[in-house]
């Protein structure tokens, strides 16, 4: 039975369970819901939760684990001699799965029966032709080993699916019997439902946390792998970045870090003053009407996808800068040769960060108690004196936190850099020269057709790890500052 059907059946059972559970509770209370411990809905919900949840949970786990187990057991059947020199076990296994899928397709289209598919012999039938007829193209003829492995793959999957269907349905029924049996007017269905809901919420939270842990671990392991192939000292202190896929690459991170920091600093130099002043205007000067119009407009900037900013950098800001600073430009100097430069990317990234800085600062400035402003006005201070000497100093720690958060976004930004800053890794002070960043290089190291086991590809993980540690550090620092600031008025 296909999984979708199974899910629908379980859900239908859940609905039936809801109706029956509710009915039984009402009957046990002689049809008067005031005699029930909980509202009737809770009795229904209780039964249907017990029907649906265990069954679906087991099904999800099963669907994840079964393919892994079958893959391993089938892979064990393939003799080492059947693996060609140029390939790996992984390649052979993907052939096996393709053939197995093809046979499934052939059976479902009626080209042969299930029994025929199980009895096929590579020598006797042209399997490749047969599969091509149902629309599955194979790169080479099917060997006897592959075919028999595919057949065993199919039969194991079929058995597994059958067992799963039985187990899931049995669980659904068992859940029903158990919870329906417990249902009567004194049963505390409301409390049970409360607990189950708590469980669901905890599950969701743990999935989020486990995923994070998983991502970090994969970063760590691959980084360790990289440092086995490439000396860590050369990575951290090398001043040249020149990967060559033939070997003999120099993978020094310093030029990339320099590019990242340079661009981020320019971006912050644009975003912080503009964002902060916009926030001050919005929270201290603008009337409700102006605020109602301006605030959403500024926040629209935050909704623009970064790739669009990248295009803006590439097609508008870059050429504009070249027309100003380039050969034959408005200033009559020749400082800039191409549209890609640190300034291009920095300016555009700064524009991207404006709403981020302004909306965070706006919240923080609004959190400064009105009593502070009244106190200052009451002493005869003007608005800007009040802002400068009372509001901003009070909000300063929070604003620093906001700036650090913006910095960590700037460091992690990719698309604008790829399109606006160029691809040359360089250690240079000239802001009109093309440079590149850690993020942009991660993209280019993984989009080539490099072998994933080579240092040239694995370096992406080390770069990712470097970025992760940097942004994590900034975020922790920012959150610490923001939190400390929050306590100040309590």
């Amino acid at each position, binding site marked *: 039975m296909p999984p979708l059907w199974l899910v629908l059946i379980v859900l239908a059972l859940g609905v039936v369970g809801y109706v029956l559970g509710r009915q039984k509770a009402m009957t046990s209370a002689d049809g008067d819901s005031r005699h029930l411990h909980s509202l009737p809905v809770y009795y229904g919900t209780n039964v249907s939760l017990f029907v649906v949840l265990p069954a679906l949970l087991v099904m999800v786990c099963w669907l994840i684990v079964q393919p892994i187990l079958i893959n391993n057991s089938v892979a064990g059947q393939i003799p080492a001699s059947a693996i060609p020199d140029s390939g790996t076990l992984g390649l052979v296994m993907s052939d096996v799965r393709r053939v197995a899928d093809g046979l499934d397709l052939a059976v479902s289209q009626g080209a042969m029966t299930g029994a025929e598919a199980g009895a096929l012999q590579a020598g006797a039938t042209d399997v490749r032709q047969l599969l091509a007829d149902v629309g599955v193209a194979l790169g080479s003829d099917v060997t006897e080993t592959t075919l028999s492995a595919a057949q065993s793959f199919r039969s194991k999957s079929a058995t597994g699916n059958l067992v799963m269907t039985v187990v899931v349905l049995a669980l659904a029924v068992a859940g029903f019997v158990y919870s329906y049996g417990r249902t009567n007017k004194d049963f505390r269905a409301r409390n049970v439902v409360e607990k189950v809901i708590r469980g669901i919420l905890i599950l969701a939270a743990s999935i989020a946390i486990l995923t994070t842990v998983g991502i970090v671990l994969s970063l760590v392991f691959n980084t360790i792998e990289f440092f086995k192939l490439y000396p860590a000292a050369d990575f951290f202190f090398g001043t040249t970045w020149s990967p060559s896929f033939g070997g003999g690459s120099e993978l020094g991170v310093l030029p990339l870090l320099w590019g990242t920091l340079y661009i981020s600093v320019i971006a912050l130099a644009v975003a912080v003053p503009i964002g902060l002043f916009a926030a001050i205007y919005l929270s201290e000067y603008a009337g409700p009407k102006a605020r109602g119009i301006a605030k959403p407009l500024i926040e629209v900037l935050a909704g623009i996808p970064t790739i669009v900013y990248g295009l803006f950098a590439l097609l508008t800001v870059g050429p504009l800068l070249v027309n100003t600073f380039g050969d034959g430009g408005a200033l009559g100097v020749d400082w800039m040769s191409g549209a890609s430069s640190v300034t291009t990317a920095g300016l555009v990234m700064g524009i991207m960060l404006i709403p981020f800085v302004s909306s965070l600062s706006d919240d923080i400035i609004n959190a400064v*108690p009105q009593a502070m402003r009244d106190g200052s*006005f*009451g002493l005869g*201070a*003007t608005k800007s004196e009040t802002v400068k*000497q009372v509001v901003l*100093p009070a909000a300063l720690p929070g604003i620093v936190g906001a700036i650090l958060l913006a910095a960590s976004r700037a460091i992690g930004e990719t698309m604008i850099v790829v399109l606006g800053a160029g691809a040359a890794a360089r250690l240079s002070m000239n802001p009109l020269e093309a440079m590149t960043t850690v993020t942009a290089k991660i993209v280019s190291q993984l989009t080539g057709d490099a072998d994933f086991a080579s240092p040239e590809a694995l370096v992406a993980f080390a770069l990712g790890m470097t970025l992760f540690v940097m942004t994590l550090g900034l975020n922790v620092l920012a959150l610490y500052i923001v939190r400390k600031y929050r306590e100040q008025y309590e």
Partner: protein
Amino acid sequence: MYDNPNLERKVAQQDTKISARNVQVFYGDTHAIKDVNIEIPSRTVTAFIGPSGCGKSTFLRCLNRMNDTIDICRVEGDIDLDGENIYDKRVDPVQLRAKVGMVFQKPNPFPKSIYDNIAYGPRIHGLAKNKADLDEIVEKALRRGAIWNEVKDRLHAPGTGLSGGQQQRLCIARAVATEPEVLLMDEPCSALDPIATSQVEELIDELRDQYSVVIVTHSMQQAARVSQKTAFFHLGNLVEYGDTGQIFTNPQDSRTESYITGRIG
């Protein structure tokens, strides 16, 4: 020391500091102050009393144009300070507030050092020629605020670290530091404990020799203890205004009498 407060204290014949004529205040469509006329003498403590929501704070805030900072608030009528209309177009409300200082219900020291809290006003208005001058102003204000002895050893500690009563006296000292002529206080003791309250009340009594003090209070005992003149507000109207002793012993209006005897409030 407040045994027989009202009757003994002679109210000398004094010049009028503030005079208000036909003052109306609206918050949007709400008519919060209705046709109030009052003459506030100089070097006197004048108390505004009345049930909450009757417009005491609103009227007080008219006297230094703090209502200008509220968008929906509209003030009509004339208020003269030393014979000059403070709602005149030529008057700068910012300058006015330096002359008419204000102390708020909740102590609101800035999150700065004690010294910087006091120096804030003098710095803004350029009252000090140099650092020594400023030091002197700060010390004088803190002495005036009856808090110098408690803070003289920690002038550079944050003002927010003081106790509530100390904070309120710090705020009074801060208002005094700009050398105002009038001090407005909106329920300055309502967030304080009894001991801090009596310290602040003592201070208010001392301030009377230099400033005109207008104090809003919901405590009639407090009004009786510290003020020489009392104004009773009810539902936006100034119902009765006169010498404190007379208001408390011999009110003319039945509403005043009910309020003082605790029948409305």
